[in-house]
């Protein structure tokens, strides 16, 4: 689904990302871990064509993302609060995204119905604009909005941060289901090793922009990662 070839991003003399090659097959749940400054968000921003690569390119379903915009209909993402429109209510935001992705209100409503538990009664019908929601609730809205319109690729940056424990557990099962049952390629980054090992079939470790580990998740993976990050 996603092919990365000779990709690098350099600011001045500092290389923040340098990946020779990486292949993510369709329907894989893919985890990205690394310390601050490892290049996780840079990689995701490159995937969404929000920044330009210094060398190389990314192909998303054979579309080169910095050349054509044809990857947009089947790709969705939630990176940070800059993906939210603060002056809309959650409902309006979902419908807005729905309209952009060719889904009418009924489609969106039926999708939202699956997330009643996840929202925990704090999102819909609250008479609040997104900007007035707490960080955690904003995140819930952004994550669910990225599921609208049956995307084939979903990119989530730090989805577990700021969420309460109950929601974290629910989110884990949602992500697992997406990849396993619906064949969606899910890319997740996290600082929490436990969460990624639980959710992802494959984990890639970035360190200072370089790909240092590429692990197929197994029972030993958590231990291995902990040893690596302990230095």
């Amino acid at each position: 689904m996603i092919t990365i070839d000779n990709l690098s991003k350099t600011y001045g003399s500092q290389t923040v990302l340098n990946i020779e090659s990486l292949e993510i097959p369709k329907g894989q749940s893919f985890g990205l871990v690394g310390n601050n400054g490892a290049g996780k968000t840079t990689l995701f921003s490159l995937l969404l064509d929000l920044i330009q690569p210094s060398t190389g390119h990314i192909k998303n379903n054979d579309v080169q993302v910095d050349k054509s915009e044809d990857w947009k209909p089947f790709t969705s993402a939630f990176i940070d609060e800059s993906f939210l429109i603060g002056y809309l209510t959650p409902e309006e935001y979902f419908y807005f995204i729905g309209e952009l992705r060719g889904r009418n209100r009924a489609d969106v409503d039926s999708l939202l119905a699956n997330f009643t538990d996840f929202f925990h009664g704090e999102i819909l019908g609250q008479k609040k604009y997104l900007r007035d929601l707490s960080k955690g609730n904003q995140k819930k809205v952004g994550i669910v909005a990225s599921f609208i319109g049956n995307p084939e690729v979903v990119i989530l940056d730090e989805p577990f941060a700021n969420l309460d424990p109950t929601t974290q557990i629910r989110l884990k099962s949602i992500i697992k289901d997406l990849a396993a049952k619906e064949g969606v390629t899910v890319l997740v980054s996290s600082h929490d090793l436990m969460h990624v090992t639980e959710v992802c079939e494959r984990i890639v470790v970035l360190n200072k922009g370089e790909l240092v580990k590429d692990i197929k998740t197994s029972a030993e993976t958590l231990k291995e990662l902990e040893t690596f990050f302990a230095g």
Partner: protein
Amino acid sequence: MFKHFFSLQWKSFFRSASFKTEIWFKILMLFGALYFIAVFLSLGFGAYFMIEKSGLGDPLRVVNQFMIYYLAFELVFRYMLQKMPVTNIKPLLYLPFKKREVVNYSLGKTIVSFFNWMHAFFFIPFSIILLVKDYNAMGVIGWHLAFLAIIYCFNFINVLVNNKDPFFYVFAGLVVFLGISQYNGWFDITIYTKPIFNFFYDVPYSALIPWVVLLLLYFITFNYFKKHMFLDGGLAVKKEEAKTENLDWLNRFGNLGTFLKNDIKLIKRNKRSRTAVIMGFFFIFYGLLFFTGSIEVYDGPFWRVFAGIFVTGGFLFSFGQYVPSWDSSYYPLMMSQNIKYSEYLHSKWYLVIIATIISTVLASFYLYFGWEAYAAVLVGAIYNIGINAYLVLWGGAYVKTPIDLTSNKKAFGDKQAFNSKTLLLTLPKLLLPMLIYAIGHFTISPLAGYLFVAAFGLAGFIFKNRVFKLIEEIYKKEKYKTLKAYKQK
């Protein structure tokens, strides 16, 4: 303590993203400031002689008579433009500063604001001339000091009423009403206010009164701030009750409707954008300065075209100017969604066009000043739709100042409702139509001048698709730079 505050302020000023603009912008802004200083200075030096020559009576008394309007405008102007200096106070709360010091520092900062000392350019030369003209020295000094105190009183009043819009609209309405009343001879407020200002001159010691008021106001503001310096008090973000709106009637426009719906909500729900619309509305009355012949220099024929452009283009200039910055806080979303630039731009374009048409209809009262006046308005509207609507969208690709839509919502937030940089960008949009008109006016006739300008506008309308393609390309090219700029708030 003061040293810390000062260095913070220094850094926040010189490291702000907007400060790092291109050099020619800085030069233009400098010229703008110099222009205002020159206007005030010439008023200060010239007012005395102008009044004396026109035989209205004792210049000081005449100035005192109209002073109430000067002060009223100063307060309105201040309310709209003066930034509240109390931003960035949150991080200071946790640090070992005494609250008293933080408040004193914040209020102290307002004292050096441009809005206070710009009046010196009028009052100092005017007072000097009075002294030279053998007015009672004590009286002049008393009068001068009294106004110094009054200006500073206004400074603190403004801090106190900041963000209390009802107050502002009532006050602004009152000023306009009083002005109209006086013009039509119904009621003359100046009869009641003039003696007060004269009193400062006649009894110099009375200048103490405004100073006492000033001190009092300082203490009130100080206490008000100190009492409200809590996260859930004055520093809390006010939350409006939200209601979901469907605006289904826009669905018939397809994807364009989706954006239009969003833009309407954007305008309605954010103070910053509302301010832009209100400013646009007031532009409609700008033409009165030209068509009533109240200002001599504006009597030249091509000033009418200038007025026409402004009267109908208020929204275009105040809102259109900032496309796409209105969407800056969620630009990454827009750029990664399934969106065509042309639809996005079209939606903004339609908004501008609709607003221009509404302004043109509202401005039909200019018919009162003769068909030529309204012809200028109509021609201005055609030019705005045909040419300027593209120019603002085009210019927007380069503006790249992120807009914090919610900044006005913070109780002590800053008001950046308008900046001189974007105002300066409007100049080419005004000079070209004037030039076109002048060519027609001087080679054939005034009517031909109007027709020329209108023809230009219509021509622009015909090339719409091509122009949009061009603008789209520019937006695409600027995409990464824009994304980067919007990230630095």
